[in-house]
């Protein structure tokens, strides 16, 4: 009954989204505001409606309605309630609905803003959000219906909304349950974060399209969506980091990033969104690169859809899965249409979106030039990622042979690019808008370069011989020093001029220009994360040995003593095999580690590594469940991962920095106006 209700509301919402899109465009072209207003209300209404649909599904999940195929496939009686709720995004059908839910939330939220000043954007923002929402709702409705029931027919069980001819309802007593690998806090929050990041990028895109259609060439769309973009970026980054944490904590292969196509699919929007956050500043300050910003935001949106397509259509496992899955071609068509219309619009408006300031007023080491270079480097990383994902598919189509494009390919190509990006992260804050030469940069950079050079000297003296590590760590040191230098210099200047104490000066400084200093905090966070990446990529060591109880193994100065191993059942039915190891370093006892693996009743194994984490390194021990284990003998795979903790620490700093930059102003309408007028007096040449 509730399933029918949910499905019915889904149908109504889909029609409402279609109406919203149609009414908005009709109202725009006929210049009839009541149609636009009607569209606004329609989009506004989608959120409560999709909420109803989602709550219905959540209720069905929690109460164990296994007569629905989706409920059957992702829940089981032994799962705790909170996991049953999160099973909403544990499978294909549910996660698509969840996508729509978040999309409707953002679409409704943006409809709620005061539209009196920028009314001309409204119809197109409504239309774009409604079309995106409509597309995802149509997937749920026609292809991946979460409310489809099980039916018993002569040829077996089928899932359908309506009873097939001659079928009887099939009602299994228990479900298959959520994949154990997904029963991890990281995996519980990772998809919502990632999806939030994805859908939030739809809002700036919608405004960009509105600006393109209406021909409003100023930077208003950027100012209106600046915070949306920052929030989107925050969620996306958190989603990525949570995914890494999950992989590190659960998958048991000693790392957090395997250059898996699914990971890359989520990274790609980030690779465009990040330079976009920077280049919009050029448009705000100098009125330049309007076309570039349009290209970047359109690309971000397309990559968001593309990422969802890659992970949801099964195309990655095989091109043949693509033709079999119903939603693959739908996505493909949607991406194609979006690309053609948005880039078509941009080309149509190309001349209108020329730079206001003459390009000639900027020099090669000006901040805008460096931002542009950074955008190019990010684009380079994007090309590598895109090609690495796409080429195996092309190869499969042409030669019918599958190939793997794996980590070595990405590492080789992406490493130098990220190195250069680090360098720019160091230089760009020292540059100035409009004018800059090597000389001005050098003059600004020599002071922070001294501690960075000291770091290099110390590294060499302490026996670091890996060239890449030396380069990478020095670049990070430089970027961090520049950032701290910028903070310190500004605080000192404030202290001198107004005799504030340092902390007050720092607080006021950041408060006055939260965007810049929030950005700098994010740069610090990136430095910390870079440290972790260098640590694990260049200095990870590993060994695998089979030990008898009482034996020990060594790695990177640690001694691991295998004390005992035991096997016991757990309440939810899984069998736990757990080893006890004592860890020593230089003869000193450090504590015990409990690597284990769980075997779930359905035969699914799960390896849970034991990790001893410090700021300098992680000791990561896996009880190897794929080799033979007995009561007295067990195989262990141990990884020594230097500096990994800095990745997680950096992500907290990152969140803090983004919040500093994105937190709403007391009077948001005021700030941009002042900036604009300041630009006019300063930048006019």
């Amino acid at each position, binding site marked *: 009954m509730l399933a029918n209700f949910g499905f019915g509301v889904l149908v109504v919402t889909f029609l409402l989204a279609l109406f919203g899109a149609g009414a908005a465009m009709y109202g725009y072209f006929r210049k009839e505001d009541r149609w636009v207003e009607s569209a606004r209300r329609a989009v506004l209404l989608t959120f409560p409606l999709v909420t109803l649909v989602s709550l219905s599904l959540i209720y069905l999940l929690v109460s164990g309605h296994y007569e629905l195929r989706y409920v059957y496939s992702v829940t089981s009686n032994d799962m705790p309630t909170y996991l049953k709720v999160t099973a909403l995004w544990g499978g294909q059908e549910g996660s698509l609905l969840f996508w729509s839910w978040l999309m409707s939330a953002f679409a409704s939220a943006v409809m709620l803003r005061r539209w009196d000043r920028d009314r001309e954007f409204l119809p197109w923002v409504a239309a774009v959000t409604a079309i995106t929402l409509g597309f995802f709702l149509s997937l749920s409705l026609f292809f991946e219906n979460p409310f489809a029931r099980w039916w018993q027919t002569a040829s077996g069980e089928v899932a359908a909304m309506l009873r097939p001819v001659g079928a009887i309802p099939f009602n299994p007593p228990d479900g298959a349950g959520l994949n154990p690998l997904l029963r991890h806090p990281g995996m519980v929050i990772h998809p919502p974060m990632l999806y939030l990041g994805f859908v939030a990028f739809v809002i700036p895109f919608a405004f960009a399209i509105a600006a393109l259609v209406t021909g409003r060439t100023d930077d208003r769309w950027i100012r209106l969506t600046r915070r949306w973009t920052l929030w989107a970026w925050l969620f996306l980054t958190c989603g990525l980091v949570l995914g890494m944490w999950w992989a590190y904590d659960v998958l*048991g*292969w*000693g790392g957090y990033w395997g250059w898996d196509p699914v990971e890359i699919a989520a990274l790609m929007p980030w690779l465009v969104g990040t330079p976009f956050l920077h280049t919009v500043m050029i448009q*705000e*300050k100098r009125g330049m690169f309007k076309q570039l910003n349009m290209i970047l935001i359109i690309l971000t949106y397309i990559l968001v859809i593309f990422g969802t397509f890659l992970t949801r259509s099964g195309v*990655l496992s095989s091109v043949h899965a693509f033709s079999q899955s119903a939603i693959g071609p739908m996505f493909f068509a949607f991406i194609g249409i979006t690309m053609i219309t948005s880039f078509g619009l941009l080309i149509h408006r190309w001349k209108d979106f020329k730079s206001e300031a*003459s*390009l*000639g*007023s*900027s*020099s*090669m080491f000006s901040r805008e*030039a460096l931002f*542009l*270079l950074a955008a*190019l480097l990010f*684009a*380079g990383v994007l*090309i590598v990622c895109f*090609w690495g994902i796409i*080429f195996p598919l092309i190869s499969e189509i042409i030669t019918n*042979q599958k*190939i*793997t*494009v*794996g980590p*070595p*390919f990405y590492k080789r*190509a992406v490493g130098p690019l990220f190195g250069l990006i680090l360098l720019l992260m160091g230089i760009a804050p020292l540059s*100035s808008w*409009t*004018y800059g030469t090597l000389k001005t940069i050098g*003059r600004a950079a020599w002071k922070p370069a001294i501690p960075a050079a000291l770091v290099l000297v110390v590294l060499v003296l302490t026996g670091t011989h890996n060239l890449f590590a030396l380069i990478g760590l020095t670049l990070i040191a430089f970027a961090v020093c520049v950032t701290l230098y*910028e903070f310190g210099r*500004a605080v000192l*200047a*404030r202290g*001198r*001029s107004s005799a504030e104490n340092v902390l007050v000066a720092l607080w006021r*400084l950041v408060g*006055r*220009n939260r965007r*810049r200093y929030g950005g700098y905090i994010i740069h610090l966070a990136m430095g910390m994360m870079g440290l972790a990446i260098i640590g694990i990529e260049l200095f990870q060591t*590993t*060994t695998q*040995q*089979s030990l008898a109880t009482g034996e020990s193994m060594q790695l990177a100065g640690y001694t691991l003593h295998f004390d005992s191993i035991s096997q016991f059942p757990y309440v939810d039915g899984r069998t736990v095999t757990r080893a006890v190891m004592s860890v020593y370093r230089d003869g000193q006892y450090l504590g015990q580690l409990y690597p284990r693996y769980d075997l779930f009743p359905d035969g699914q*194994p799960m390896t849970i590594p034991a990790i001893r984490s410090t700021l300098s390194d992680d000791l990561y021990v896996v009880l190897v469940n*794929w*080799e033979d284990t007995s009561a007295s003998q067990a195989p262990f*795979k141990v990884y020594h991962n230097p500096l990994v903790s800095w990745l997680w620490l950096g992500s907290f700093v990152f969140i803090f920095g983004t919040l500093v930059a994105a937190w709403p102003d007391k009077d948001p309408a005021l*700030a941009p106006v*002042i*900036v604009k007028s*300041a630009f006019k*007096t*300063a*930048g006019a*040449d």
Partner: protein
Amino acid sequence: MLNTVRMSKLMNSILKRSFWILGILLVCLSFSTGLASAQSPTPSDDQVNAIARQLFCPICENIPLDVCPTQACHDWRELIRQMLAAGKSEAEIKQYFVDHYGARVLSEPPARGLNWLVYVVPPLAFCAGIFLLFMAFRTWRRTGSGSAAALVSDPSMPEKDPGSANSQGDAASSAVDDEYAARFEEQLRKQR
């Protein structure tokens, strides 16, 4: 004169020969040590994993062979161990897997035929980007050197970042260099 030339030639040839001999000796040595290690009774897990890590399981997607938990992968690791014990080299073992399961077991496709594109396209695209940017910079510079110089010599230019022009204290932080910062602070003080 002639003698010295002849002497140096002789020295050269002796040096060259000794290099050759040394080289051959080294190769022999490395071969013998290689064989010695290959003939050790059972290769360790680490030796097996060193090769397995570079191979991708032909069945499970995107999981390197050294950490793949399936039975098939377990068997393949055992196969590597046996081949190592039989004295096969890393290249031979990899080739064996390629011959049996196709190029997909390698973490990177061999740069042959269509697969060349994997390695060629990204650098080409990136170089095209650099070229475009370079061209843009050039036109940019040529047309703009005059106005840029004008801007720099213009003492009324308040600061590099107009975004913070609304806050006086901030402004100091964004100056290009200390000298400039001092000048700007001076201006601010006058304004007050």
